[in-house]
């Protein structure tokens, strides 16, 4: 589960999007040769993590 970084407390939506994309790409790279069904849940965790940061 992706956790928000404490230093990103004032992340704007566009910054959050960049963080999401970077994290998702890195996740995909590490599973490039095996597509796991649960990967969508990991992506969802990344999105939720980043947006929680934006809202706090």
């Amino acid at each position: 589960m992706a956790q928000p970084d404490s230093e990103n407390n004032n992340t704007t939506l566009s910054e959050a999007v960049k963080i999401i994309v970077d994290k998702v790409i890195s996740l995909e790279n590490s599973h490039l040769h095996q597509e796991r069904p649960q990967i969508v849940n990991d992506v969802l965790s990344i999105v939720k993590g980043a947006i929680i940061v934006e809202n706090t």
Partner: protein
Amino acid sequence: MKILKFKLNNYRSFYKETPWFFASTDDKKNVTVIHCENGVGKTTLLNALIWALYEVLTEDLQEPEQLANKRSLREAKIGEEIECYVELFFEHLMRKYRLKRTVTVKKLDSKEYVYGNTEVIMQFSGDNGRWTDIKDYSDEIGRILPKQLHNYFFFNGERIEWIQRPINKKEFIQAISLIVGDETYTRAIRHLNGAKKKLDEELANIGDAETKYLYKEKKELEEKLQEIEKRIGDNDKNLDGYRKQEKAFSELLISVGGEVSSLEEERQNLINSLKSIDNSLTDNRKILTNYLSDKGYLIFSPNAFTKFLDLIKDLRASGTIPQPYKSSFVKKILDEHICICGRPLIKGEKPYAEVETWLNRASMSEYEDLALKMEGVFEESVREIPNTFNEISRAQKARVELLKRKFKVEEKIYEIGNKLKGSDVERARELESELQKIRSIIEDTIFRQGEETKDANLTKIAINKKEREIEEREAKSAREKNIKLQIKACRLAVNETEKRRDSLKKENRKDLEMRINKIFNNISFKPYNVFMADDYSLSLESIDGTVGKSTSESQVLSLSFIGALMEQAKEYTAKTELIGLDSSIYPMVIDSAFGNLGEAYQKKVAEFTPTLSSQSIILVSKTQWNENIEKIMRPYVGKEYVISYFTPKNDATEINIQINGITYDLVKRSPVENDYMEINEVIIRG
């Protein structure tokens, strides 16, 4: 991945168990050569490795269903089972692997045999040296060397031109995407959309009745889209199959001989010309569209331009413009209360009021500046109008010419079809009739595909509209607001990922084309440039335009493509620290590496082969391993084998090869009534 050793048992032409073939693992002497005459077992060895890893065979393998050795089957008793297997040891990321794929064949009677299921044992050697079984062997192999990429590592050099004419273009492009890295982005987009869908569902469960209803409608549309996309996918698969059949019928027509062959060959050339004309028409349309979107307004604007320029001319003639003073200058005089003639300017008195009227007039100077600037721009535009007309007319003329050529070619294709339909040769008539049927099916499928694609696009637009409607609704709770934000972030993340993927693709394609050019020009002695189209097809261009490719050039072009792709993949994996493709180590197994090449190209390809990958296994006949190649490759050969074939035919021509002063038999008359093979390792000197 580095191959360590492999052996075959009752596999195709190899009777009983072969000794181990050890592959060279030396970094400098990285080439393993296996000498074997044509028809004896070169292609079988290539296929044995592919079969062991992926349970597939190359398309050029004759009688692919006959995996077990015929002599072993003949000698087996009725009811007896024989084992046919390939065993392979390899190393990957410091770990040793053992892979053995076996199929058991039962002899039912003297002519009938039944094949059982294949069994696979895959193990790795742990730190304690013990071998541990790997259950999901196919996943493990996929991680080490993905199945869809195997064609780039194990191939027949003589038939390598397939790279420029892949049967399944989608699969081919996907494989390239995986190698050069943009597949990562495609998957990220798919999974982000998956996450968005989950968030949509979450929102639908907490939204109000109207929002819920909108979500229901959106879900229905999405399901409809899914069905359409499935149909599109099925159509694509069917099209691939139909095209294979079309190709097979065409080849059969060519094999009929005589006039029928010439007609079919002519038709194939015409079909290729038609494709090239269609490409030119697409390019022409792009040129016209660009002209019309960039300069099209000029055609409709000459009257407005002339009217404006006349107006400016009149204003200039009447002295209304340019104004003699700028507003800042008049303001300064008023602030200093002294006129340029030295008279004092006192507010409320007449001289002050007179100078103040200039301020109002001078404040129009900004508009005046703008009008003068526009005058320059409009004059330039008026001059450009005839050029634009000429360019558009030139592009349109070219379009008309292309359409005329297209019509003529289509007419000729139609005539050939008619000739073949009415041919005196019954077989030709039958084949043409089948070919016409399959072409009609292909046309129908393409038409259906167009309709489905249109429907898919309309559904996507409807989904977007529904999404906007949902978005427009106010958030009913903090949670709803939060999820909405997450959905928005998902959508923006998809856009951002698409942007990154497109820019990476562009960059990679440019880089790949440059690398192909570099390798091709290093090997080729002709001053050609390689051009790579959107679908990765390659053409050669001289200063006079596109040139036809010789067989050698096609082969070199494909090798350059593989070399460039691997070079790019190496750099990409090193950059992203991907663990899938080990950053620089992979084997390359090439059957008939120098087969169809002319002498000059053979030498260059021989120089290039050891650098193509970190481990090469090349399978060659005597004619494919000539003196020139031997001289160039010898310093890189770390392991070498000769497969000797002993034939019972008394009149067979014996063939042998001299290696390091020792004579090795390639074909020899057998002292017994059966044919058999012997495998000898060559002693490498130095």
